[in-house]
C-alpha cells in the first residue's frame, strides 16, 4: 500500500525512546483509550516491536494497515476493530 492510500491517522504514539515490549504496551494503552475505527500510528525504533506488533494486532483482532520504514524508525499503522 502506498502512503497516499493510507487512512487518516487519528492518533500518533511516539514510542521511539522505548524498548521491547514498550512500543506494544503503548499501542495497547492507545487502543484501550480509543474508539472503534480509530487509526493509530506507532513510531518505533525497536526491532522486536516491528515483528511483535503485527503479530499482536492479528491475534487481538485489530487491523494492520502496514509497517512503513521511516528515517531510522518504523511507522506501524493499526485500525482498532473492536
Amino acid at each position, binding site marked *: 500500500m502506498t502512503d497516499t492510500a493510507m487512512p487518516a491517522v487519528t492518533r500518533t504514539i511516539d514510542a521511539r*525512546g*522505548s*524498548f*521491547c*515490549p*514498550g512500543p*506494544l*504496551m503503548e499501542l*495497547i*494503552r492507545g487502543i*484501550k483509550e480509543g474508539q472503534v475505527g480509530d487509526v493509530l500510528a506507532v513510531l518505533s525504533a525497536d526491532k522486536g516491536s516491528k515483528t*511483535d506488533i503485527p503479530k*499482536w494486532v492479528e*491475534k*487481538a483482532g485489530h487491523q494492520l494497515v502496514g509497517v512503513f520504514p521511516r528515517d531510522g524508525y518504523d511507522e506501524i499503522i493499526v485500525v482498532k476493530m473492536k
Partner: protein
Amino acid sequence: MSDTISFVLFSGTDDRLQAAAVMSAGAAALGKKVNIFLQYWALDAFRRDRIDLDHGLSPEAGEAGRAAVDALRAAGQASWKETLSQAKELGDVDIQACSLSMDLLHLEESDLDPLVDGVEGVTAFYISAEDGEIVFI
C-alpha cells in the same frame, strides 16, 4: 495454550528481574493472567526502601555485560519496576510475596513496594497457577 502463566522470581539481580518483567509484560499484552511469586532475593529487591537501588547483575554478565546493560538503560530502557507497573496497568498481573521468604527476611507487608499485591503461601500460589506453566527465574 493456557490463559494463565506464572513466574516464580528467586533471583534479585536487575538483569533477571528485567527479563522477568519483559516476559510478564508480553504475556499480559496477550491477555494472559500473569501470577508473579516473589521468593528470597527477588523479594528483597521489592522492598519499598530498596526497589529503586542498583541490585547488581548475574555473575556471568561480567564487565562487558555491565557496560551493555548500562548503555541500554542510558538509551532509555524502562526499568523492571516501570515495566511491571505498565504491565499491571494494561493487563491482569498479580504479584504475591512468598510468606516463608517474608519470615526469612523479617519483612512485614508494609515493608514492600505497592507493586506487590499481597502475601501468600506456596499452596495458594499453585492454586492461582491453575494448569498454566510455571517459570522459575
